[in-house]
């Protein structure tokens, strides 16, 4: 048997295992994507199997849709701030928990009570987004019954007659939502980074300490470079989450599928859903879906390219 034939046999063997999952993937993931492309060129209402082909009309209308443009802008804002804030906080906490303690006789370790912190930080991650929305709905509630307003009123910082309408304030609403996402995400990425840090050999740190490196230097010169792979992956995940945001926006803010007040918290997914289900413009919504897909994919490529560095073996 020739070398090539044996190779082919192995490929067939592997393909045999892959046929079923691949078929499932093609039918349930790829085919709907292709259909969305198709529908985006129609005036499909979503409630009826009849529709007409309208060419690029939906995409042309999309270009002039101020609400969608606003939503895109909000997604981009979130795209910058969600990963940046979450990763920075998670890295900081992970470093403090794992390697930020005073170096004692035992060498490198975390701050006191670090194992306790690790568990506490992870709590938010076990809550589902729906519970999160209810929880923060109570935090941001716009009368004195809200946690924040109640606190501020008791402290005398806010007049009881004019409580802060957190989620009904065009300047605050997006940042309020950002806070929820960050609060939810930090714990998970803390654990992820902790695991990565623990796989860094202790002697690397000890060597740095012996050379007289302080906390900051240890972090930027040793920890961060060795964690780069994890940071990169996290950035992509968080970026994709920031492009979505549907559950939080649609449940916490006003309007059909959220987005209020007056489109100030609108994200692409909420505009899409409103057009798809409520306005009966499903073809148009499919065009939005295609734009979202393209943007998200472009984003992943850019992030992975831009952050590519040489892998450090240890």
């Amino acid at each position, binding site marked *: 048997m020739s070398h090539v034939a044996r190779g082919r046999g192995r490929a067939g063997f592997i393909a045999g295992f892959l046929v079923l999952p691949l078929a499932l993937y093609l039918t349930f993931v790829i085919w709907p994507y292709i259909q969305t492309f198709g529908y985006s*060129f129609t005036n499909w209402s979503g409630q009826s199997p009849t529709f007409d082909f309208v060419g690029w009309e939906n995409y042309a209308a999309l270009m002039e849709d101020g609400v969608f443009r606003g939503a895109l802008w909000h997604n981009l804002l979130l795209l910058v701030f969600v990963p940046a804030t979450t990763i920075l906080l998670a890295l900081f906490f992970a470093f403090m928990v794992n390697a930020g303690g005073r170096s004692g006789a035992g060498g490198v370790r975390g701050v006191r009570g670090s194992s306790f912190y690790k568990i506490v930080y992870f709590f938010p991650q076990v809550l589902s987004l729906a519970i999160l*929305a209810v929880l923060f709905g109570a935090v941001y509630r716009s009368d004195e*019954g809200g946690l924040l307003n109640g606190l501020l009123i008791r402290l005398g910082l806010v007049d009881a007659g004019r409580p802060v309408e957190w989620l009904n304030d*065009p300047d605050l609403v997006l940042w309020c939502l950002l806070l929820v996402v960050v609060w939810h995400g930090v714990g998970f990425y803390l654990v992820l980074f902790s695991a990565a840090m623990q796989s860094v050999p202790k002697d690397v740190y000890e060597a740095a300490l012996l050379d007289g490196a302080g906390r900051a230097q240890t972090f930027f010169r040793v920890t961060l470079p060795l964690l780069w792979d994890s940071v990169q992956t996290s950035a992509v995940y968080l970026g994709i989450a920031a492009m979505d945001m549907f559950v939080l926006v649609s449940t916490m803010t006003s309007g*059909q599928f959220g987005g209020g007040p007056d489109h100030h918290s609108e994200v692409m997914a909420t505009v899409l859903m409103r057009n798809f289900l409520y*306005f009966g413009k499903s073809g148009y919504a499919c065009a939005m879906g295609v734009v979202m897909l393209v943007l998200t994919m472009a984003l992943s490529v850019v992030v992975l390219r831009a952050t590519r560095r040489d892998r450090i073996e240890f």
Partner: protein
Amino acid sequence: MGSTGEGGFGRRDLIKRSAALGLITTPAMGFLSACASGGEAATNGPGKAAVTRENPFGVAKGGKLDVVVFKGGFGDDYAKAWEASFDKKWGTTSSHLGTQEIAAKLQPRFNGGNPPDVVDDAGAQAIKIDVLAKGGQLADLTPVLDAPSLDDPARKVRDLLIPGTVEQGTQGGKFVALNYVYTVFGFWYSGKLFKEKGWTEPKTWDQFLDVCTKARDAGIGGLAHQGKYPYYINVVIMDLIAKKGGLDAVKAIDNLEPNAFADNPAALAAVEAVYEVVEKGLLMAGTNGLTHTESQTAWNQYKAAFIPSGSWLENEQLKQTPEDFDMKFLPVPLLPHSKLPFEAIRAGAGEPFIVPEKAANKPAGLEFLRSMLSREWSTVFAQQANSLTVLKDGVDPGVSLRPGTRSAVAAVKAAGSNTFQYLYPDWYSEMDTEIQNASNELMAKRIQPKEWIKRAQAAVDKAAKDPNAKNNRRS
């Protein structure tokens, strides 16, 4: 619109469903082919029996009946009782689904050509009737109107309905939705609170502001509204326009006239009147950001004098209302020189029941609707859901009503023929949403009345550009 179910549904769920929807529709369709005509109607129907006077739609005995109802402010016990009664009479086997997620549950079924036989298409996640009608998904319900009534076979069902029911359910000239629940809209207050404080029911807007001011001075809010859902405060604005400008103003808006809001003094006066409440600080603190449940509960706790709502309010707040609250209905008070009297109210049929065009057992669906318009079923509804139906004199006098419902009935009587109803929310969902957005901004003091008028007229003009708009005219 019953209680608006709070919150959304999981996105993943929807994606899954829309994916499934695609899978159901396309294999039968030949992707993107010009003659795409969806899944065939499922043929598990029992066929048709002979049409007789007792059986005007030819319901076959022993068939299946698939009922989906919105399980919101009215619950769904009434529907279960109906289904049991239907099964008993026709020997059918009915399946029942009570849900808040009408669109998510039914959209794939409509697309796949296997919809249920009867749907109560209501709530925040209803599939819009205008959208379904445009897609040819709704059966013509005119045969139900022309069928003999179950109570009195000598009369047609049509003659036993409260006026306006047929108009309300008509889309593009075809009667497709039986809006079953008779709802009145206006303000609500606590009879107990008013008695305690010595306030009297305001009949003019000035008196209304006066009571609100007294309330504020007594340390409670004047007006509460369900800020997260601007639908409610929009009712107040639109009702003030209707009462000040008369039925012509209502028609101008529904018919998308270029002067529906712009250069319409009644509209500006109405918006300025509502804005006065905001400017004078007569709103309950924080009400702009509250959900319907939160604000209505605060009102039940005597934190505000008035709240706007439809007559589903009493049933919705059943658990939160103190025993001696004495809930009372108040027609929206009058602005000076109004064309309609104080007693005039927005009243009309809500909670649309439909029979899908492609229903497997369409005869049973139609018969179900005819049965709903019998005194027996209407009384079942009044008992189970504390609300009135569009069947004239449809409740057994033996049934005693709760205070809110009682005062609503009195208001209906006092109004007589002075009722009005807007049709644009059913016809133009996008325009409705844009006007509600403007109202939300107005209440938050971020725009002025003149800007509201400009935005509302822009929404009207945009809707008028839709080629489908010409099918919807009212006179």
